């Protein structure tokens, strides 16, 4: 059972529990199907190489979906995701794990709402960080007795 994450539970530097994903060729094909992104660089190796890539690459938007899961797993159903961004600065290939990580960079109150800004990123199995991003969430505050 998910324990409610309250705004008071986090502070600058708080680490988000890492999320490990194992993207496979099969997952890329499945993601192509549900997202409607059928660009061949994500499942046809010969085609990918013909465009100048080394092989098939993971959809940027799938990596962003992994970062979305990192945040929504952490905040649970009582938190609200307000902003999610990711940059795709390098190619990640399927077949080895990706570790999604993040930490809190700012906590603040605006219009009586309690916000948390986070820095998020993905590390591939070579330790490369090609997918930096950020997220802003709204968290509940602890009930007063």
């Amino acid at each position, binding site marked *: 059972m998910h324990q409610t994450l309250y705004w008071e539970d986090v502070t600058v530097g708080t680490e988000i529990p890492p999320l490990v*994903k194992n993207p496979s060729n099969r*997952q890329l094909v*499945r*993601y192509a*199907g*549900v*997202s*409607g*992104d059928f*660009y061949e660089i994500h499942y046809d190796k010969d085609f990918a190489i013909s*465009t*100048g890539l080394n092989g098939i690459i993971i*959809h*940027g*938007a*799938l990596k*962003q*979906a*992994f970062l*979305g*899961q990192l*945040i*929504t*797993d952490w905040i649970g*159903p009582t938190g*609200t*995701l*307000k*902003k*999610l*961004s*990711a*940059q*795709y600065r390098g190619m990640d290939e399927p077949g080895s794990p990706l570790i999604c990580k993040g930490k809190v960079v700012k906590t603040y109150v605006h219009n009586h709402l309690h916000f948390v800004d986070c820095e998020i990123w993905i590390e591939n199995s070579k330790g490369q960080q090609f997918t930096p991003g950020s997220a802003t969430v709204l968290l509940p505050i602890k009930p007063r007795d």
Partner: protein
Amino acid sequence: MEVERGHIKAFAEAIEDPNPLWNDENVARQKLSTGMMAPPTFLRFIRTERLQELPEDFPYNRSLDGGSQWEYFESVKPGDRIKAVTTVTDLYKKSGKLGEMIFVLTTTTYTNQFNKLVATQTNTSIRY
């Protein structure tokens, strides 16, 4: 485009995200009175028409996704009818590993059947 419960679940399965909020109506309803909803990047599948702002003979056929920024205003639920409108907000040229590259920045606004703004997505597409 109408958001179907089965499509939300298929999307969640494809990204391998077992969160009951996007997988199971009954469990979702125990957690949130509003029940099942779409995961954060679900609206990505809603495509808009070919961008009017780009010329017919735009000579760069290959593209890479440079990044995406979402801002959320309302949750997306099964049965919602979402309309997406995309506009080009910036266009510039750069040289890089892949030769001459054109950066196309777009913003997509997603509105629901109540005419409420649901989300915006700013996307960077790299054409080369």
